[in-house]
């Protein structure tokens, strides 16, 4: 009788350790990733708002060419006709990543309206992950409770 119980306990423990805990870890990792993405977009939004507020038309930055070798880059708002090369310096248009390797050329105002929508979607994903994590945690709790009960009974 005792042996049977011990076996059960062992099986439960293994279940917790091998399936539930890694699941929990993975879910948390995924949620963190989404968090980061959300942060990226919110930063972008804030910057854009700043730029607009200060009516910044030109900016300079350092571009990473790879292996941390930087080169100076400049963006100058130029009111040139659209016939010219696409990549003329232009702060009025910004290319926003919309997933799957696509970037959409938008004006600032359009970008400022799109980005919050994106952020909302990310927030919903985060919520889902949170629910999943909570589920896994609950499962772990139930199993450990079961183990505890099994352990307590023999002592009684």
């Amino acid at each position, binding site marked *: 009788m005792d042996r049977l119980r011990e076996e059960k306990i062992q099986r439960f423990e293994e279940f917790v350790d091998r399936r539930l805990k890694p699941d929990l870890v993975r879910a948390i990792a995924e949620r963190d990733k989404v968090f980061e993405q959300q942060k*990226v*977009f919110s*930063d*972008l939004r804030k*910057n854009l708002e700043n730029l607009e507020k200060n009516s910044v038309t030109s*900016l300079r*930055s*350092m*571009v990473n*060419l*790879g*292996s*941390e*070798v*930087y*080169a*100076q*880059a*400049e*963006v*100058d708002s130029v009111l040139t006709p659209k016939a010219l*090369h*696409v*990549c*003329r*310096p*232009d*702060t009025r*248009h*910004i*290319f*926003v*990543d919309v997933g799957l390797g696509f*970037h959409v050329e938008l004006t600032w105002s359009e*970008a400022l309206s799109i980005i919050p929508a994106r952020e909302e979607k990310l927030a919903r994903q985060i919520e889902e992950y949170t629910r999943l994590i909570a589920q896994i945690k609950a499962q772990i709790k139930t199993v450990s409770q079961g183990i505890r009960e099994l352990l307590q009974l023999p002592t009684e």
Partner: protein
Amino acid sequence: MGEPLKGTVTPLSSVFAPEEAQKASVRVQETISERRKQVDQLQAFLNDNNGLVNLVKKLPDQLHHDIMVPFGKAAFFPGRLIHTNEFLVLLGEGYYAERTSKQTIEILKRRGKDLESQIETLNAVIKDLKFEASFFDDTAIEAAEGIVEIREDYVDEAFNEDEPTKGEDDFARILSRIDELEKEELESEIAEEHEEEDKADLSHLISLTSLEPEGRSPEEQAKNEHLMSKISLQNHPQEDVPKPVKPKDLPARPVSKDLSSHVKVPTSSGSRLPPSLVEHNKLKERVSHTPVPKNEKVSTSASNSGNHSSRASVVAPVSKEVSDFDSSIGSDRSKAFTGSIVEHTHNIENNNQKGQMQAPASKPVSRFKMQRK
């Protein structure tokens, strides 16, 4: 044969348990794959580095480059690269250096060299690990087969001591039979050759066969002087390797052995040497074989001894090339000189003393002088 020889028989599986050997092999394989991954990673870095070098080379060609300037992680601005000859390079720990294109390329090239040397060391490590793994595999297989290691005490006269190395009994047996036959031939020829005493030839031969021109003259003189006195001295260092020693040939044999050692010592090549020596001195050499215990990796070298009666102690090496060597030597039977064959320890000695070629040449001389006195 027929003398009771003392020895121990140890089954290999007791020394190396096959399961453990397999486990060890698996562990080594894992380490090998880890190292391989690191090598791949480094290789990727190296490729990136090379790509960057090309880019940095091309940028100053234009005053401005139209590019998409990243703004955060998810947006780009159309913009331009300006100051195309100025680059900011990260040196580590938050320190940057502003450099021109050429200087940046130099920095990147130095980094590339560093990466390459790292890759090379890792590759060497992987090679070593591979050897280890193959050793473990072989040991596991052999232990599983129940191969037995037999060690027997070295007895001086016994030329048929058998120390069968792992799993090569058949080959050893065949070799021993060949050796016996050759021994008989040798005995008959020794009677003929007893008349020839060619010390002059000795030096000539030595000069031909010695690969150490510098050590030659002292060697020659030493040889000519101390031919006979070298006997016992040379015998001792090589005692651990069984040598076929016939009582009647004792005086002559050690001499030739000395000569062989003399010739051998300065030479750096191991078992490769004997065939080449034989070829060089075909006319003047003759290697006589005496049946000999088959030790592992005994190198044979044909040395010229002016003394006819040189007995060649052939410790038949396990490798096949020696058997070929034997056959070629057999054809040279009728020549004047017999070669003596030096054992494996010499090999090690030679390899160790590759950088000290001169030392062996001088040492025997002094030793003999001491012996004389």
